[in-house]
Structures are given as C-alpha cells and as structure tokens.
C-alpha cells in the first residue's frame, strides 16, 4: 500500500521505493493501455486485425493510415472546431459555475437545497430524448451551424457537475482568509477572484477538465446542431471514416490518435505547471 496516500506523509522515505513504482505502474498501464492499443492499431493494415494469433506490436508498421486520414477528411478543420467549442464552452461553464458556486457555498441563499436539486435534476434527463426541442430552439434562434449552438448546450451540460465540484471546494476554504481580504478593502467578488479561486485552483482546474473533455467527446448534440462539413467537431468527423457495414479500425485509430495526443499533452502540461504552481502558492499562502 502506498504510504503517503494512507495519510502519513513523511513515512514514505522509510518504505521501499518499489511500492511507489508499482503504484505508478498500475495507474500508467491502466490508463495508457487502450490508448497505446489504438496507437499500435493505427500503424497496422486492416488484414492484420483478423490474424491469429493476434498481434500486439504491428508486424509491418506503416504511417499510411495517418496520410489517408488527413486525405479523406479535413481533420485539421475538425480539430479547430473542437478547440473553439471546447475552449469557449469550458470558459463559459467554469465562469458561470464559479459565480453560482460561490453564492451557494458562501452566501445566505434561500431555498439553497432546491436550487442544488434543480441543477442536479436537470442532468438526469437523457439528452437523447431532448433533441427535438433543442433542435427547434436553436433553429428558431437561427444558430444552427453556428458555434454558439454547441457552446451553449455544452456549457450547460457540464454546469451542474462544475458547480457542485466548486461548491465542495469553496466550502472547504477557511472564511478567515476571505474576511481578511475584505477587511483590506476588497469586495466580495474581488475576494472571490483574488483569494478563493487560487485556493480552489485544483477544483477549478478539475471543473475545467471535466467541462472540456465533456465537450471534446460529445457526439449527439454536435452531429445534430453543427451538421455542416465546415462545422463538424472531431467525434462527428471521425465516425465518417466508417462505411455502412465497415469499420476501418486502423484509419479510425489514426484519427483518434490525432484527436487525443495534443489534448492529453496540453492538459498534462497545464496541470503540472500552472496548477502545481497555484496550489503550492495557495496552500502555503
């Protein structure tokens, strides 16, 4: 068992380093394996997939799936669309959720329980059964094939989880710190921005990842509200490599790798540098 995780931090130096390595290996293998499988598949030809015994590492690695993936579909454009929708909906979601969460965590809100229940309750309806009215709404607003038609619902879909995550973080931050800032002449919103948000950085960041990934992976709304070729997001674009009966795994894997790698790296780097820094600064300060 991993020592620090069980609570007592400094003991870890005394325990064998091996445990640390094993623990790390579990997480890495568990998380990376399917992604690596996709990567290996992207280097294979389709015939290899039904060979017996099955192969792991490709027998004759080839990059032609990547070339074909870019030739058949404007992957770059899809990537750009996904970034626009993902970033905008994340910013909108986290911004709106922070304000709401602050109110719910810190202020005297009448019927607070009801507001929380409503928020959570909305996410209990399967989106698939709301498609017709949603489509009508955005067609009436003239937003079909407009980024907003996806940014708004994506932000709204992640809003409940983002808000509740932030509520739980804001509630954990000592009120003294905030009061001190307010005595120093800051307003409540100023204190929220300067004191609470940095202290809740891991929570804010988590809310942002959840919102971003929700948006990055969402298929149903994206395929219905942004159907035009120039507006397709990655999940919508990638499924177009299929045929009516065929599912060309190598080609789709190549497109998935293209979709996955930059996002994963950016999030990992961002977390290491930005949030790591904020947290250390925050907890000590």
């Amino acid at each position, binding site marked *: 068992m991993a020592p620090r995780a069980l609570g007592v931090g400094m003991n870890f130096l005394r325990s064998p380093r091996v445990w640390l390595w094993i623990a790390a290996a579990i997480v890495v293998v568990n998380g990376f394996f399917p992604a690596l499988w996709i990567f290996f598949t992207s280097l294979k030809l389709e*015939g290899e997939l039904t060979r017996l015994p099955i192969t792991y590492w490709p027998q004759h690695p080839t990059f032609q799936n990547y070339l074909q993936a870019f030739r058949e579909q404007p992957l770059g454009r899809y990537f750009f669309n996904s970034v626009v929708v993902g970033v905008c909906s994340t910013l909108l979601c986290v911004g709106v959720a922070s304000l709401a969460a602050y109110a719910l965590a810190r202020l005297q809100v009448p019927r607070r329980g009801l507001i929380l229940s409503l928020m959570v309750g909305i996410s209990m309806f399967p989106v698939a059964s709301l498609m017709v009215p949603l489509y009508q709404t955005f067609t009436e607003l003239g937003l079909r094939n407009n980024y907003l038609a996806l940014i708004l619902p994506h932000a709204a879909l992640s809003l409940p989880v983002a808000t509740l995550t932030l509520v739980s973080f804001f509630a954990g931050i000592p009120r003294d710190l905030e009061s001190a800032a307010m005595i120093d002449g800051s307003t409540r919103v100023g204190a929220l921005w300067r004191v609470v948000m940095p202290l809740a950085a891991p929570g804010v960041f988590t809310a942002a990842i959840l919102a971003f990934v929700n948006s990055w992976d969402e298929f149903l709304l994206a*395929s219905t509200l942004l*159907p035009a070729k120039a507006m397709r997001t990655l999940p919508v674009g990638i*499924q177009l490599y*299929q045929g*009516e*009966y065929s599912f060309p795994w190598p080609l789709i894997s190549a497109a998935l790798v293209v979709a996955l790698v930059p996002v994963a790296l950016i999030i990992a780097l961002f977390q290491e540098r930005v949030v790591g820094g904020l947290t250390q600064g925050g907890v000590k300060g």
Partner: protein
Amino acid sequence: MKKLVWLWLGVFALSFAMAQTKIRVFVGGQQRPEIWRKILDNFEKANPGVKVEVEVGGATSDQQQQYLTTVLASRDPSIDAILIDIVRPAQYAAAKWADPLDKYLPGVSKANLLKQLLPAYAQADEIDGKLYALPSFADAEFLYYRKDLLEKYGLKPPTTWDETIKAAQTILAGEKNPNLNGIGFMGNISEGTVCSFLLPIWASGNDVADKNGKLTLTEDQARASLQFWLDLMDKYKVSPPNMAEKAQDTIRNEMQQGRWIFGTLFAYAWNRFQTDPDSQVKGKIGVVPLPKFEGGRAASCLGGWQWTISDFSRNKALAYKVVKYLTSPEASKILAVDASNLPVYPALYKDPDVLKANPWFADALPVVLSARSRPVSPRYPEIADVMRKALNAVLARTKTPDAAAKEVIAGLQAIYSGK
C-alpha cells in the same frame, strides 16, 4: 436615380429568385458524397438557376435515422430531398414525412417508370398504392464462394443449402486448416441478422406477410429458420461457435484473408476482395444467388437506397425534378461506374461501360432479380428488432429455437394486429 432604383429592384428580385431555387439534398457519409456532387454538377449545368447543396450526414443508417428523426420531427424545411434506406419508406409515409410522388407521375407515366426498375423496388417504395420514394441504387446479399477451393474438390457452385453445407464439409475435411471456416452469415444484433432470419423462410418459399399485410409466418417456419442457423454451428460444424458476435465486416475481413469458403455478405464485399491491397483472395471469389431449400426458391435479401422528398420542403416540385434526375438511368450509370453501386435498372447491367468498370455485375443481375424486400411496414423497426434479437439469442444459446420462435410469433402478432 430611377435607374438605380430599378437596379436595386433587379438585384432584389434576382436574389429572391436565387433563394427560391436552392435545393438541399441529404446523403449519408458512407454514400460517396463526392460522386453525388459530380452528378448534381451535371444537373446544375442542365438547369441554370438551380443550386443544389449536398448535406452529408452520419456514416451509418442508424446515425442518419437519429439526425433525420430530429430534423423531421421538428418539421424543419431545410432539407428538401433525402436518400433513405430501403426499410424506411413505409415509416416515412406513415409519419407523413414523405411527399407522395404520384402527382408528378400522372397517367401511365408511373407504371412506365416502375416497369424499367427492378421489381422488388416498386414493391418496397409503393405503400398502399402510392409511391413515396424512387430507388437510387441497389444492394443485395450474395453467396460469395471460393472458386479455387470449389474447383480443387471438383464441386460446382451450390444452388441449395444442402449442397452448400456438403461442399463446406468436404472442403473443411480435405483442407484440415484450423483457421478455415465454412459458411459465414450475420448473427450479431444488426440489420444483416434480420436478413439471416428471413433467408431460410424465403428459401423454402414462405414469407412473413401476404400482399394485404396479414401475418402469414408460422411458428414452425420461424423455428425452422432459427434451428437452421444453429445447426450450421452445432450439427454440421461449418460455422464457428461465436457467430452471435461476428459482424458482417469481420466475416468480410476474414474471408479476405482466405478464411471462409462461403459468406453471405452484401455487395460492398466484392470490391474489397478484388481491390484491397492486402486481399489474399483476388480473382478467387465468385458470387451466386443465395441457395434455396429443396422445393423452395432462391431468394436474396434486398438492400439499397431511395430518394424521397421531405413533406416539409418548401419547393417540392423542384425537389422532384432533382430527384428525378438523381434516380435517372444517367445518374445510375455514373454511380455504377464511379462507385460500383448496383443499378436499379436491369438494362444497365448489360451496359458496356458499366461492365467494363464492374465485370462481376453480369453475375450480380440474377442475384438482384431474386432479391426480396424485408417486410414493408411502418412498424418495420419493431419487426426487425423482434427477428434479430431472437436469432441472436438462439445463436448465443440463451434461448432455444422453440422458445425464441414462440416469442417471434407473439411479437409479430402484436405488431401486425396494431397493438
């Protein structure tokens, strides 16, 4: 000044006219949108002032249904004409999503048009005497077989299921290759499995419903069909035990690696066998109609795609003009040559350009002519669900053919009696 006003009016009128003559057609992502564009470019050249936009939807029939249900249930006029799967026209007609085409085909012109087409399509697209869609290209299930292996054992391409099973057993016993399988068919939960369920019923000369839409399928017939596929695995040992999870494309891929003797697959497989760079069976594959049972008749499962006009379109007459062109022999020929789509006009199977691009179409014609359409009913999706779940459960051995046949008949009775 006056001139300027007239100019503005002119521009306004022109832009109005332009807006009026814009038609949007919907095709699935798997249907080679670039070829449709080419056909529509021809149309635009011949009809100046009409712009036709292609909206490309999801790549499978399932995903298109999801999108089109949303658009059409919202009564959205933005799509004028839609390319739909063969099983949809009845549903579209009942939902009043499709504009009946009879008014554009007065007098004998409708009968004349239908006469030129493969007979099964006239059947599938005409509901209660009204025409709701025009067929664009055909598809059907074929019995693909390994010419080289059959020749090696001195066997002729089979015409009955008994011959097929015996041939598979002979070759399997002779080859002694553990990776070689006998008869491939669809048994996972998919549209192809509906066809699998229907094939033995048709091959013994029966059908699900009669001409008046009355259920005629009996429990015995249903059980015989379910038992037949199960026997291929358990009794005759010509199919591996995991048919319940095999997708059509897995069988296609395996056959391409030389691992099946027979495969019941749709038309798309042919080109993959012949042209894929890693195909091991180039020139070694033949096609024949699906086998019959003694005393029955050969029948294939009909697929294919139809053009229908949205009832919410604001420009139906013009949309019909577009659809008429899209389903013309001229367009059908482009689809046959460029996309290897099977034509719906029997005459085109003898066209030299078409045959030059697809020599195997000569063998395909008898198969397509023998093809029968799955039950034509607005509640087809429910019928299909009953059939494929039953066959899948039997192949997975979670239900006996007896129990599954009872459920099929009970399910179908409820649907056909309007419950």
